């Protein structure tokens, strides 16, 4: 490998790592109650500090920041997989309607279970979201067989998204429940209210998926060359495609189940990371996208919490402000 390239990769990964740590602790420190950094260190070391601060740290800030780190990474990774799959730079779980499909089924499950007085578990949420994601993905795949045009594919994804959102709204409107507020907040996308229980489940599911995706980096790199060349070097295209679909759906499902649909991260982050690394090699892009997604979401969540404090913005409001211009930039670049 060329020396310059190696330097670039190492620097990029270092910066991404530092970015994750920096924004993670910033997220833990900043909020309605400001916590100073030494207190966090003390709390993490198990030393005695102010009771309220300890509670805020352990019950609210740390699980939330950890969840943002994990889900943000997963979101960018899902976007990267979908972009590779469709060879479409503006594909992502949100634009293709996969998030909305997951949201719809989760809303149905929640309303049904709550209506019958059953507690909704993380597992049920993820399963529901996965089914929803697969339904949308199925539609998108059907469409992609009929249309080869990449903008039309995105348009059809957006339409699927609208249909699913409409159904979700309908369900939410008719669900006459005290939990409706929760449901409403969640369906707009938010990282608030994360518990350690949630974090445990997402950490297990996402880390396993991440490893599985990382192990695909070799066939993915051949897949990027085009079907004929991938097949020629011995890639089993069908098996690879099935795996990409399943893993990107699991990732999208996990995000939706815990934080609701979040827009633009899936498209914007892989592009920024690609420009940053100046490579498309999956073996580098997969971990870099994950870290990039974490940084981006930690940054956006920080703004969502603080801009209009004590009111919290929905996370998509913030991600759209920073993500949408990136998408425009991509499209302008494509036209050239």
């Amino acid at each position, binding site marked *: 490998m060329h020396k310059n390239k190696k330097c670039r990769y190492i620097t990029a990964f270092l910066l991404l790592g530092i970015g994750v740590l920096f924004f993670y602790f910033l997220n833990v420190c900043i909020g309605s109650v400001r916590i100073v950094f030494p207190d966090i260190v003390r709390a993490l070391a198990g030393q005695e500090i102010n009771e309220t601060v300890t509670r805020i740290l352990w019950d609210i800030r740390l699980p939330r920041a950890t969840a943002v780190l994990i889900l943000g990474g997963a979101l960018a990774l899902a976007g990267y997989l979908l972009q590779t799959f469709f060879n479409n730079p503006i594909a992502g779980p949100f634009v293709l309607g996969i998030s909305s499909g997951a949201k719809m089924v989760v809303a149905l499950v929640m309303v049904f279970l709550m209506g019958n007085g059953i507690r909704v578990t993380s597992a049920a949420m993820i399963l529901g979201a996965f089914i929803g994601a697969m339904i949308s993905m199925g539609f998108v795949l059907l469409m992609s067989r009929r249309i080869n045009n990449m903008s039309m594919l995105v348009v059809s994804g957006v339409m699927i998204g609208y249909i699913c959102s409409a159904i979700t709204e309908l369900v939410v409107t008719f669900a006459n429940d005290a939990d409706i507020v929760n449901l409403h907040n969640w369906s707009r996308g938010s990282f608030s209210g994360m518990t350690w229980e949630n974090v445990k489940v997402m950490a297990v599911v996402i880390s396993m998926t991440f490893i599985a995706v990382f192990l695909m*980096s070799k066939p993915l*790199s051949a897949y990027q060359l085009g079907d004929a*060349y991938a097949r*020629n*070097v011995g890639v089993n295209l069908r098996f690879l495609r099935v795996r990409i679909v399943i893993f990107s759906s699991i990732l999208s499902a996990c995000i939706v189940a815990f934080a609701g649909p979040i827009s633009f991260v899936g498209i914007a982050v892989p592009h920024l990371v690609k420009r940053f690394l100046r490579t498309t090699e999956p*073996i580098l892009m997969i971990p870099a996208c994950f870290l990039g997604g974490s940084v981006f979401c930690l940054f956006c969540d920080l703004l969502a919490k603080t801009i209009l404090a004590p009111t919290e913005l929905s996370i998509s409001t913030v991600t759209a402000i920073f993500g949408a211009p990136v998408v425009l930039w991509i499209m302008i670049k494509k036209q050239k």
Partner: protein
Amino acid sequence: MENYYFITKKMCVGYDNKPLIKEMELALPKGEILSIIGPNGAGKSTVLKSIAGQLRLIDGTVYLGETVLSEMKADELAKKMSVLFTEKLRAELKNCRDVVATGRYPYTGWFGILSKEDELIVDEVMELTHITDIREKDFDKISDGQKQRVMLARAICQEPEIVILDEPTSYLDIKYKLEFLSILQEMREKKGLTVIMSLHELELAKIVSDKILCLKGEYVERYGTPEEIFASNFIEQLFDITESSFGGNEKFLAYIRGIKATKK
């Protein structure tokens, strides 16, 4: 070196189960060059895709040596056969050397990282194909002719026994056309590489090929040595060229006759 044959038995190719060309019986000794010629739309690319295992055969069998091609494992086949199709290779943010190196895929481990030996082979092949000077250039920014040479290097880098090329010389100027074909001949002599390709340039097909396959219509029109194919009026028939084709323009007709006349 053992005698290694490329054989097709009753091969029938086409798309969506609709046969385009039927009952193809081809046989090629190891280390020979087979060119496919024929008018546009005759099915040259279809035949090449089918031979390469990229398109399901409608009927019949293709043998590589003793083995039935469709029964070979994908990774085994990848070490024996490489392709250069008209389909564009996507190479975002890759320089020419990166593209050539993708040919090493079947030989690398789980994560696809090139070994020292792989790196050496990549450099060697780039030397052989005379593209060392553009090694650092972005693949997306070089000319179509240069791309074609990089793609040939990529195919050779895969260290195949047989290489399938679809109109490989189309974008090349005359110097590079000749250079391209001479590389193939060099590979054939040195490594016993078997080549199957479609060519538009009849005069080139005539001088580089050991066998020529003419396609037109539902069945193999003709299969034989260049001497056999270029004898008599066959080429005119194949391409539907008659005396009146060019309004009787003598110069054009002389050109056609010239292709037939020059001895190998």
